[in-house]
């Protein structure tokens, strides 16, 4: 018991750094959630292209990023590019790497939802004279996004958890600060356990928020995937 | 000789009575048909008899043994009763042959070779042996039901229960099943058959029980009941069912 009190004392002393780290974690997670969603929509749009080559390329893109670890891409940019004189900040590297990766996953969710869509409705819209971009923006996308809410909000949880990877490229996010704290105070178990609990709490917030969003946005009579 | 007998059998779901005071007996080699409107408790009756559900009152005597006693080995009882369902309930991941051998191997501990022999014998009887390597999804409804019957027969049961064996089948396939039941009758297989199907009840002969709201209201042979019965409920049921056909 006493050592827990001592531990919390140490945490309080380290408070500013840890809070700054938490801020950086939330910043990264928020940015890649937005850019990953936009990127996912773009990739999804390209996957519907009438051009075979374009479809093949997007398929290859999705498959490659789903099949390779994110940290290979992060290390390539962070440790590799300087050899060509290109030095990017850890945050920029993380944003670029995560966006490409998350976009691939989001595009796949959207494609799965699209396959479950009523094709007649899209046909009808085309017959009404809408351009294909209009059909996409006004009909396809809203429906597909609604159907994908569970998968997309699950991706937000993954974004938050995976942002901890950025500490391996010196981005001073939450887990990096916890790591620093642990080494300085020689408090490994308690510090990492606390980090785990913090992530769990943040994940819970996202879970609650996404349930709320789901209830608000789901169309009556349409089951999400 | 009496094979199966119930005395004052009652069943409730959450305090709601579904069967009340059922007295039924089935002799060895006999066929009885139970008819009645939807929700009257027909499936529940069959499920009570093989103890898939536990009756709330009364007794079931199976070959002189009270199988409602708490120390009854219900799994042994169920192994002696073949059950054929409306929706076939074939195991979709197993071939026709494996559907029939599964019980023999896993419940009877029969060696594979012997189980296959026995299964093929029953499949031959049901005229399904040439389909033994197929999977359920590759069969017609009538074929599925014949496999289900072979699966039940393979366990060498004391009695066969049918729960609406033809109601998921078109008339032609229903005929297949009716023929099978008639054939089994000639082989002196004891059977209890629940059905909506007037044609089935007529074609297989046997005594017919009329169940309504959990109570047996009448018993007689088919023509007796289908004819102008004095009870208006029974008349209404049969004229409506006849209209449905």
């Amino acid at each position: 018991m006493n050592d827990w009190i001592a531990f919390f004392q140490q945490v309080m002393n380290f408070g500013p750094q840890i809070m700054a780290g938490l801020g950086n974690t939330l910043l990264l997670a928020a940015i890649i959630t937005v850019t990953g969603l936009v990127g996912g929509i773009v990739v999804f749009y390209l996957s519907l292209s009438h051009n075979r080559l374009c479809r093949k390329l997007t398929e290859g893109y999705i498959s490659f990023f789903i099949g390779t670890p994110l940290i290979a891409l992060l290390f390539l940019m962070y440790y590799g590019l300087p050899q060509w004189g290109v030095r990017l900040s850890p945050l920029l590297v993380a944003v670029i790497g995560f966006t490409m990766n998350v976009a691939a996953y989001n595009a796949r969710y959207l494609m799965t939802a699209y396959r479950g869509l009523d094709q007649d409705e899209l046909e009808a819209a085309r017959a009404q004279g809408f351009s294909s971009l209009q059909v996409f923006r006004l009909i396809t996308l809203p429906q597909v996004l609604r159907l994908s809410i569970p998968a997309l909000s699950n991706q937000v949880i993954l974004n938050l958890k995976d942002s901890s990877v950025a500490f391996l490229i010196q981005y001073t996010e939450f887990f990096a600060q916890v790591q620093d704290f642990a080494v300085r105070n020689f408090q490994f178990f308690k510090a990492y356990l606390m980090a785990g609990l913090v992530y769990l709490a943040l994940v819970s917030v996202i879970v609650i928020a996404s349930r709320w969003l789901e209830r608000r946005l789901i169309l009556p009579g349409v089951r999400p995937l | 000789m009496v094979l199966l007998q119930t005395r004052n059998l009652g069943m409730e779901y959450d305090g709601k009575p579904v069967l009340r005071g059922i007295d039924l007996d089935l002799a060895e080699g006999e066929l009885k048909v139970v008819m009645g409107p939807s929700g009257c408790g027909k499936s529940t009756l069959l499920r009570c008899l093989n103890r898939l559900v536990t009756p709330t009152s009364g007794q079931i005597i199976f070959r002189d043994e009270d199988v409602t006693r708490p120390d009854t080995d219900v799994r042994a009882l169920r192994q002696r009763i073949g059950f054929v369902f409306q929706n076939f309930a074939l195991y979709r991941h197993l071939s026709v042959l494996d559907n029939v051998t599964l019980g023999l191997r896993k419940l009877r501990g029969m060696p594979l070779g012997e189980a296959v022999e026995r299964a093929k014998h029953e499949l031959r009887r049901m005229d399904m042996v040439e389909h033994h390597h197929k999977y359920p999804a590759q069969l017609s409804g009538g074929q599925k039901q014949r496999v289900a019957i072979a699966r039940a027969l393979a366990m060498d049961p004391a009695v066969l229960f049918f729960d609406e064996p033809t109601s998921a089948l078109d008339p032609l396939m229903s005929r297949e099943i009716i023929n099978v039941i008639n054939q089994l009758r000639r082989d002196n297989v004891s059977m209890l058959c629940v059905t909506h199907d007037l044609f089935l009840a007529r074609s297989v002969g046997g005594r017919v029980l009329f169940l309504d709201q959990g109570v047996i209201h009448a018993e007689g042979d088919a023509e007796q009941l289908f004819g102008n019965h004095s009870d208006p409920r029974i008349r209404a049921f049969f004229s409506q069912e006849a209209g449905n056909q």
Partner: protein
Amino acid sequence: MSFIDILALLATGAGYTILVTLMCSATGMAVGLAIAMFHRLGSRQVSACLAVFTYVFRGIPVLVLLFIVFFGLPGMGIGVPPLVSMMLSLGLIAGAYLGEVFRGALDSVDGNEVLAAQAMGMSRMQVLLYIELPQMLRFSVPGMVNEFTTVLKYSPFAYTVGIPEVMKQAMALSAATLRGVEIYLAVGLVYFAIYKVLVTFVWALEKRYRVPGLTEH
């Protein structure tokens, strides 16, 4: 040093990457199956415990759990070897996800078949073993492929606990040669190749045991 040389050097670490992936996937399978089975057979209290386990292990980042196990537990007097640390972090997390996959697949098993098996005189355990499990595993293939892929993609974390897998080789090589771009590009290709082999293998296995009309692909 050519790109091919780089690939060849990295490939020496591939054995460890595959070992880590297989061991963690196997842990995940065992845990996931246990979760699904206990959920099916156990009481309401058991289900509640499993739900808590699943929630916790799906909510903690792999890296954090790995650090708790490998760097944290020794401070509590429990030393855990690197590979076991991977299994207790990545493996358990995969188990939590696979448990969800299996539970969903169990719900797709036709209740009528379960009833028929019980009517035949099978015990609850026999029904699970001979009817529910074989169907559930077939229904779960897409979910399992996803999860194995995820395990493969998180396997580079093994370098942080000193396992000489592909990423560790790449870091050593890049420190020595300063040719990070080619090296990490090669890393991507090596993982992608392992991914393709893994996915092809699982689907080949699925095809071997595929039952007509049971799953639709």
